[in-house]
């Protein structure tokens, strides 16, 4: 399975920077399509891989034989053992890594530099050896889709607000939607890695896997249809909300019904993703980088004391400001004081309600993203989904 250098018989590794297979011994470079793969039947539906199993989370990590696995790319646990040689289905296409390991690491580091709330000790974890390139299986689908939504919103009528309802139904023809084909990677995580641009895709050649890990699709057609429906629903729901008149507030989809039909011949692809795994305070974290575009996604741990300090300081400052303004206004004529206080209190109450709603929902989302980055939670989620 290994491709060897025609000059010195050294192992060839794919270099994303040059888009060539490079020999670690003599430095010679070859285009993957020019390398003759001895003993490989390119017309075969299968290709050979080595499978490692993580004793901690049960994940299976697949490598080419030029890469030996030392720790689990998903949960960061070193309890990983060689399991077997496996014949896997040959994907239809692949988007080769464009971003090198160091470039990916630099992109993560740039988010860390001058970051006042992230603990400094995690900087030590941003090392190339903690970084793994993995080809994640995706299904690229075309789908006919139909959805009906019952939506509510509030409209101001003088001093009062009234709830109104909106009915929407429509169809969409989706084209080239990527659906994460692995149960092990949470759909919410893979969604954040998008977009992947299919213009860069190549016909699958296992030479592109040299130096990287890969995973194979473990879903069946029902899983794919379910994931596709959820993905299309999210795209549809985000758009349908925009069709509600601008003067309507608190727009919420109350009820939905949706159906997706995947067109025949979905394309089985491998997309490139860099995984950085590290531990902080005993909890594992995973930061992902799109291996094609360089988009970084993940939630970094933060200094709890600092965040609590900021929250408490804001709380005290806001209260001090309101009390101070009370004493300042108190000196005026009584009718002016009453007017200013009534208007001020009403405006402040409205602003506070909006701040509360935005802040609460935002924090809930960030905590959810944090749980996704703490990959043990991903695995609990995956196990629940599998069961």
């Amino acid at each position, binding site marked *: 399975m290994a491709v060897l250098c025609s000059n010195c018989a050294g192992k060839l590794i794919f270099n994303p920077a040059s888009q060539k297979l490079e020999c670690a011994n003599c430095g010679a470079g070859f285009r993957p399509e020019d390398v003759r793969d001895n003993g490989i039947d390119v017309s075969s539906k299968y290709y050979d891989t080595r499978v490692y199993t993580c004793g901690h989370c049960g994940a299976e990590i697949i490598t080419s034989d030029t890469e030996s696995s030392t720790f689990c790319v998903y949960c960061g646990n070193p309890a990983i053992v060689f399991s077997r040689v496996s014949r896997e289905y040959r994907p239809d296409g692949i988007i080769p890594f464009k971003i090198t390991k160091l470039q990916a690491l630099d992109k993560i580091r740039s988010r860390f530099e001058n970051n006042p709330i992230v603990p400094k000790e995690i900087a030590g974890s941003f090392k190339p050896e903690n970084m793994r390139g993995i080809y994640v299986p995706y299904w690229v689908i075309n789908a006919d889709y139909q959805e009906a939504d019952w939506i509510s919103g509030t409209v101001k009528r003088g001093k009062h607000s009234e709830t109104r*309802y909106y009915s929407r139904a429509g169809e969409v023809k989706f084209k080239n939607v990527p659906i994460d084909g692995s149960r092990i990677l949470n759909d919410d995580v893979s969604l954040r890695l998008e977009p992947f641009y299919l213009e860069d895709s190549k016909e699958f050649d296992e030479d592109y896997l040299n130096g990287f890990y890969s995973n194979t699709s473990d879903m069946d057609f029902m899983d794919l249809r379910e994931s596709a429906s959820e993905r299309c629903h999210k795209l549809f729901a985000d*758009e349908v909300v925009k069709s509600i008149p601008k003067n309507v507030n608190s727009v919420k989809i109350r009820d939905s019904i949706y159906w997706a039909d995947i067109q025949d011949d979905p394309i089985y692809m491998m997309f490139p993703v860099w995984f950085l795994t590290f531990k902080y305070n005993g909890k594992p974290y995973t930061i992902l980088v799109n291996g094609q575009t360089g*988009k*970084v996604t993940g939630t970094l741990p933060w200094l709890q004391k600092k*965040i609590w300090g900021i929250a408490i300081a*804001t709380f005290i400052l806001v209260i001090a400001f309101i009390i101070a303004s009370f004493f300042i206004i108190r000196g005026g004529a009584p009718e002016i004081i009453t007017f200013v206080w009534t208007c001020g209190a009403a405006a402040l109450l409205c602003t506070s309600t909006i701040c509360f709603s935005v802040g609460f929902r*935002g924090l809930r989302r960030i905590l959810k993203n944090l749980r996704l980055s703490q990959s043990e939670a991903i695995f609990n989620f995956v196990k629940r989904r599998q069961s």
Partner: protein
Amino acid sequence: MIERLNANVFAMSLMAIAFLIFTGISFALLITYKILKKYSDIGDSSCDIKEYSGRGIQYNRMIDDAITNEKYFLFADYGVDPYAEKKHNIPEVLLKNAEKDKHQFENRGQDSL
């Protein structure tokens, strides 16, 4: 009279304190969220419908200020899978995965016996 007045003052004070606390918490929540969003939560964005559909949504129904009954008509009209009868050519990988799952399920069942 004085007792009633005192009760009113007490109630007003309580309301003022509750208002102060609510305002303080609201602003603290917003500021904390904004800071975490900026510095901790990286790349929380995803694509919109235009990325995957040139024509976007073709609306069949678009009713504003709908009456409650409309909900039942809406779901009655769209509640059946329009693609249910369609046959598919399912890729071999997906068929094999389904078989693998079936075997695992059967083995688990036998183990538990």
